[in-house]
């Protein structure tokens, strides 16, 4: 009896605000509805047909994938390199560096997004001032040009969430006992040998887990995207979450059915990524066990 009482808060809140919405999205995706009126007109798969026929949906899908391909490897590889250096007991100030490189993670993304607009401003922003001081004539309109906007947001995103992946790697590195290195040193192994023969093989299972956690996180970039570019210019940074938001909340007449169909497709995509993740985690576990 107590067991169920203890489960109750989670069942109610999580059920209402996570499980129910997941299910309800499917129902909404089959109706035409503006959200204000009570009437929902059942239209079958019409919403899906519209979404599939909408080049902007495919564009947002492409941007989401492109963004993932830009930021996930950068986060995983760069933070790995830094973690290796920071993990060494010989590095002075290592604690201070950890704090500094983790700092952007704790700051409010939506506020960082706005501040970054100023910092990257073509006329008065400090980045362009520095570029001009270095001799580059004319400011670069980082966020206002559809050719540079996505890359710029990606760089900011990597900077903002780099610290999370760094902590993942540091945690992974801590699982390697220091005496293995001691033993290797006694056997006369050099730094490079120890790195390629001890560190890398032992970290392989973690590489899978960390990559997948990072990839999954890149699917949630709404805050930064919405505040830095709002999806623009010319939809060049419109990830799926912004596409959904635009159809459901930013349109003069909201099209909840259309937005829900896009959301269901997005959910299916996230689910597939999650399945790959699960498979990856299992094979990573097997790798650790076989060791």
């Amino acid at each position, binding site marked *: 009896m*107590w*067991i169920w009482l*203890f*489960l109750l*808060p*989670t069942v109610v*809140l*999580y*059920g*209402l*605000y*996570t*499980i129910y*919405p*997941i299910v*309800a*999205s499917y129902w*909404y995706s089959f109706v035409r509805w503006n959200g204000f009126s009570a009437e929902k007109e059942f239209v079958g798969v019409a919403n899906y047909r519209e979404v599939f026929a909408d080049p902007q949906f495919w564009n947002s899908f492409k941007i989401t994938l492109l963004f993932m391909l830009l930021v996930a490897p950068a986060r995983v590889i760069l933070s790995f390199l830094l973690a290796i*250096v920071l993990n060494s*007991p*010989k*590095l*002075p*100030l290592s604690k201070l*560096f*950890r*704090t*500094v490189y983790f*700092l952007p993670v*704790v*700051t*409010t*993304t*939506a*506020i960082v997004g*706005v*501040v970054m607009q*100023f910092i990257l401003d073509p006329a*008065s922003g*400090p980045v362009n*001032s520095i570029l001009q001081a270095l001799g580059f004539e004319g400011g670069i309109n980082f966020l206002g040009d559809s050719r540079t906007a996505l890359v710029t947001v990606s760089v900011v995103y990597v900077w903002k969430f780099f610290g999370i992946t760094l902590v*993942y790697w*540091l*945690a992974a590195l*801590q*699982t390697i006992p220091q005496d293995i290195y001691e033993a290797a040193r006694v056997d006369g192994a050099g730094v490079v040998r120890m790195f390629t023969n001890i560190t890398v093989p032992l970290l392989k299972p973690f590489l899978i887990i960390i990559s997948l956690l990072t990839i999954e996180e890149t*699917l*949630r970039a*709404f*805050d930064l995207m919405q*505040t830095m570019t709002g999806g623009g210019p010319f939809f060049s940074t419109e990830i*799926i*979450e912004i596409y959904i*938001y635009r159809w*459901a909340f930013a349109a003069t007449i909201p099209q909840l059915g259309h937005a829900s169909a896009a*959301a269901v497709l*997005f*959910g299916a995509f*996230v689910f597939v990524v*999650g399945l790959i993740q699960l498979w990856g985690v299992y094979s990573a576990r097997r790798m650790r066990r076989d060791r």
Partner: protein
Amino acid sequence: MMAVTDLTRRSVDRRPLTTAGVLRRLPWWIAVIFLVGVGVLWVFPFVWMVSASLKENAEVFAAGLNLIPSHFAWENYIRAWEDARFGQYLINTVIVTLWTVFLVTARSAFCGYVLGRYRFRGSRIIMGILLATLFVPTGYTIIPIVQISLQLGVINSLTGMILALSGAANVAGILIYAGYFRQLPKELEEAAVVDGAGFPRIFFSIMLPLATPVTATVALLTFLATWNAFFLPLVFTFGRPELRTVSVGMQAFVGESAVDWSGMAAAGVISILPVVALFFFLQRYFVEGIAGAVKS
């Protein structure tokens, strides 16, 4: 673990300075110089923000690279606090965050305790559902969340926002608690049962106090996520601008007076300072909470 690394580091530092020793440590000093350089770039946006928040707008637009303001324009903060209503937004954010942290931590502790400690009919199913929905993005669930809040009559209210934030995907806390409670020895309960303690007594006076470090981690991670939340607070305040949280308020500020950069920088400092301060004092728990994702 930390203590071990500290110890080794100290023993290295105590080695007498010989030419060979200096040479051996040279790569590390090069690394330090490099990391300091990148680190300065890393925090530059925040330094610039603080600097801009203390400059006159004209001085910010002049775009000099000098970060020290010619005089401290504290009136920016007054403008952000009063005219841009960041005082109000800050209060809203504090209310929403504290309630959400309380609700999420409590329900995660309850749920994690039961799932970690007991096998019962349905426990595997519940665990399965939680794991399957671990990564549900807000963009997917947002439309039904708004609709259900409309039906409950809590849209455009802080209550609605708190409920939605407490109910939206935060499975990690449950998993951390479940993992912790699972590995506690069975004898704990057996001894308590002999003493005549019931289920709630065992939980509140034995288990929960034992899990204090977990509680700290879960509460902090929830604090961080809620304070920084943007999507849900955005859609919950369309009709009531006075209920905005700081993250939503910032974007509204841009829409209202796009030229008041120093005012916005001040608003940014006001909004970010509380989380950063908390982070500096309780860094360990933040890091442990995030690292937990990899270890489990």
